[in-house]
């Protein structure tokens, strides 16, 4: 409860000197915040997030992100982005598997004069070294058409997809319900997507509880995990930096990405690829 004399005092002050000093103070505060917040954010990220990443054996660079060429190489998204943004890159080796991931936001624009921006992808883009050799391209994409039109009609639309290689029908019904699979080689796609890996990808999707798309190209697995939040955001300038709940959240976010290696069993190297 604000004391009455304080309210009355303020009213008297505004009546006497006008609103301008207050506005001036607000503008001053804005610039003060901008001036100090950026260095604070940078040092927060380079010190705190980097330490959390190091604890899991990863290097952190808050300004870097998965490169545009790698994003294009994955071919998960067919729309060419007009705006490409990303930060919070983490790289490292988990067991025998090299991984790197970062936050990404890609958009395309539509319309002539009144430009509208549409998101192609926003979330975590994850790249790992795959444990089997392959030469073709295999895509595991969210099954949009089968979810919307049912298996028969949806399956028909899947076949009509002109931008993707041939449709691959796998025997795991549950997996087929969630994903549409395309690949350049029927046998190779099945070699990559063994029954065990299909189950593991389903678990991964459940764990993140969001849209997940994968591609297997050039001895790598690319995973696009849609997430509608900004990762590793520094707290407000005037709040404490030892907010454990927030630190725990950052830790969990990193741990979940590191766990992908375990979830997809990428450290099992019983094939010719070491």
């Amino acid at each position, binding site marked *: 409860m604000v004391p009455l004399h304080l309210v009355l005092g303020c009213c008297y002050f505004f009546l006497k000197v006008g609103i301008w000093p207050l506005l001036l103070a607000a503008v001053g505060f804005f610039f003060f915040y901008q001036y100090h917040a950026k260095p604070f954010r940078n040092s927060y990220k380079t010190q705190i997030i980097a330490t959390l990443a190091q604890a899991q054996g990863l290097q952190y660079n808050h300004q870097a992100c998965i490169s545009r060429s790698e994003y294009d190489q994955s071919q998960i998204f067919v729309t060419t982005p007009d705006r490409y943004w990303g930060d919070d890159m983490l790289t490292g080796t988990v067991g025998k598997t090299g991984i790197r991931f970062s936050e990404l936001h890609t958009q395309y624009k539509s319309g002539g004069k009144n430009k509208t921006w549409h998101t192609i992808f926003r979330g975590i883009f994850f790249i790992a070294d795959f444990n089997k050799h392959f030469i073709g391209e295999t895509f595991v994409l969210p099954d949009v058409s089968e979810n919307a039109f049912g298996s028969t009609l949806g399956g028909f639309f899947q076949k009509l997809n002109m931008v993707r290689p041939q449709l*691959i029908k*796998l025997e795991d019904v549950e997996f087929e319900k969630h994903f549409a699979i395309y690949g350049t080689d*029927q*046998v*190779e796609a099945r*070699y990559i997507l*063994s029954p065990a890996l299909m189950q593991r990808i389903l678990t991964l999707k459940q764990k993140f509880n969001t849209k997940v798309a994968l591609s297997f190209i050039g001895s790598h697995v690319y995973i696009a995990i849609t997430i509608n939040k900004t990762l590793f955001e520094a707290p407000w300038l005037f709040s404490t930096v030892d907010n454990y709940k927030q630190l725990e959240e950052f830790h969990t976010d990193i741990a979940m990405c590191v766990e992908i290696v375990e979830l997809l069993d990428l450290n099992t*190297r*019983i*094939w010719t690829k070491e």
Partner: protein
Amino acid sequence: MLLIAGIAVVLLLGAVLTYNNLVGSRNNVENAFGTIDVMLKKRYDLLPNLVEVAKTYMKHESDIFTRIAELRARAQSATTTDEKVAIENQISGTIKGLMVTVENYPDLKANDQFTMLQRSWNETEEQISAARRAYNAAVTAYNNAVDKFPSNIFAGIFNFRRKEVFVIAETERQNVSAKALFNS
């Protein structure tokens, strides 16, 4: 008159498409079967090398090598597909048994050449399994075309018969028991 001609053209077009779809799916099945053969050949080429390296270390396991040699000879003379598949399954089982026995030979286990061969073997095994799954998918698509209306009419006329999918042999489903393999 024009209407009748129009209907006739549509019907003819439908018939051509259905027939072509049947032929296409039958060819896919044949192609998939060919791929299995290629993968089996790959594994088959690997066998002598694997045996050669293992033999130098596993002097007391002559039984298993005799059995592999015997199976290999039988695989060469096999004529029917069923026979071939049965022998290949037995080869798979025997090698799995061999891999279990390798645990008792630390020197062999540490041998780089053997480790690489073992990895190649695992790879071809998984490739064969993938080729079989691809074959089964092609057969299912073909059988659907043969059974579903209206293509079943053409299937009947042009003698397209249902094909059997690969069933995993009982021995493959069970876990490998080295003891059972040596007693057989």
